[in-house]
C-alpha cells in the first residue's frame, strides 16, 4: 500500500474515533469539539521537543577532524614519493 494511503487511513480512524466520541457524549461536547486542536498542538509540541532533544544530543566528533588531518598528511607524504601530483592547496 502506498505510504500516503497508510497515513490517510490512520487519519480516517482517528476521525472516526472523534466522531464516535461526539455521538456518545461521554465527555462534555465543548471539550470534544476541541480535541482535534489539542491533537495538532500536541503533535507540534512533540515535534519541537524531538528537534530540541536531538539538537542537544547531536553527536559531534571534533577529534575526527584531527585524525583526518593526520590521514591527509600521511597520504600526501606517500603519494608525493610515488610520483602522484598532490599539489598545494
Amino acid at each position, binding site marked *: 500500500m*502506498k*505510504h*500516503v494511503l497508510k*497515513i490517510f487511513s490512520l487519519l480516517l480512524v482517528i476521525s472516526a474515533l472523534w466522531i464516535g466520541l461526539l455521538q456518545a457524549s461521554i465527555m462534555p461536547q465543548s471539550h470534544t469539539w476541541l480535541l482535534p486542536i489539542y491533537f495538532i498542538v500536541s503533535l507540534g509540541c512533540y*515535534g519541537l521537543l*524531538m*528537534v530540541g532533544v*536531538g*539538537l542537544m544530543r*547531536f*553527536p*559531534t*566528533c*571534533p577529534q*575526527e*577532524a584531527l585524525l*583526518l588531518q593526520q*590521514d*591527509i598528511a600521511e*597520504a*600526501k607524504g*606517500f*603519494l608525493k614519493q*610515488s*610520483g*602522484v*601530483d*598532490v*599539489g598545494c*592547496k
Partner: protein
Amino acid sequence: MEQKNKYSIIVPTYNERLNIALIVYLIFKHLRSRDVDFEIIVVDDGSPDGTQEVVKQLQKLYGEDHILLRPRPKKLGLGTAYIHGLKHASGNFVVIMDADLSHHPKYLPSFIKKQLETGASIVTGTRYSKGGGVHGWNLMRKLTSRGANVLAQTLLWPGVSDLTGSFRLYRKSVLEDVISSCVSKGYVFQMEMIVRASREGYHIEEVPITFVDRVFGSSKLGGSEIVEYLKGLVYLLVTT
C-alpha cells in the same frame, strides 16, 4: 557454495584533483590489508582542474584493474553518475561515497562486516547514531539537519535514521533495481533511494559513521536547498 565477494566503489568526482588522490590512498590503506577484493570506479564529469590526470597517475601506481576511470563529458548529475558507474562495476556489491573526504574510507570494513553478519541488501552510514557524528557544522546547520530529519521521520517512517546520507553499501542487484525507479536529483535522490528500498522490503542495516564537513572547499545550505528538500519530502510522501 563459497562465493568470493567483490566490492565496486563508485566515486563521482567534479574538481576533486587533490581529494581523489587522498581518498584512493585511504581506501587502499583500509581494504588492502583485509584481503578484500575491490575496485574503485571514478566517474568524473569533465573536471577542468585536472582530476582525470591525477587519476591516471593513480592508475599507474595502483593498477588499472583496481582503479577504473570512466569519465563523462560534463556535469550530468549524481544519479546518472551512479548508473554510469554501475555499468562498469564487476563486483557483486557496490559502495557509493563522496570524493570530498566527508566520508572516510576507514568505515569501509565496518560496512562490509555488517553486511556479512546480517546478510543485508543495503548497509547505510548514519551520522546521527551513537558512534557516529558530525564535525564542522554550526548551530544553524545542526538545527536545520535535525528539523529536516524529524519532519522526514514523521512523514515518511523510513526505517533509517539518516535519510540524506550518501555513504552506502548496496548489493549490486538491489542498487540496479532501486535506481531504475528514482527520478530525483541531488540529496533528495539519496532520500528517494533509501525510502524506495525500504518500501520494497529490502533488508537495510545501519553503521555509525563520522562526517567531517568539507576539508577543502565549502558546502552550502541556503533557502533554495530547504525548499527543494520540502518539495522532495512531499514527492516521496505521495509517490512511495
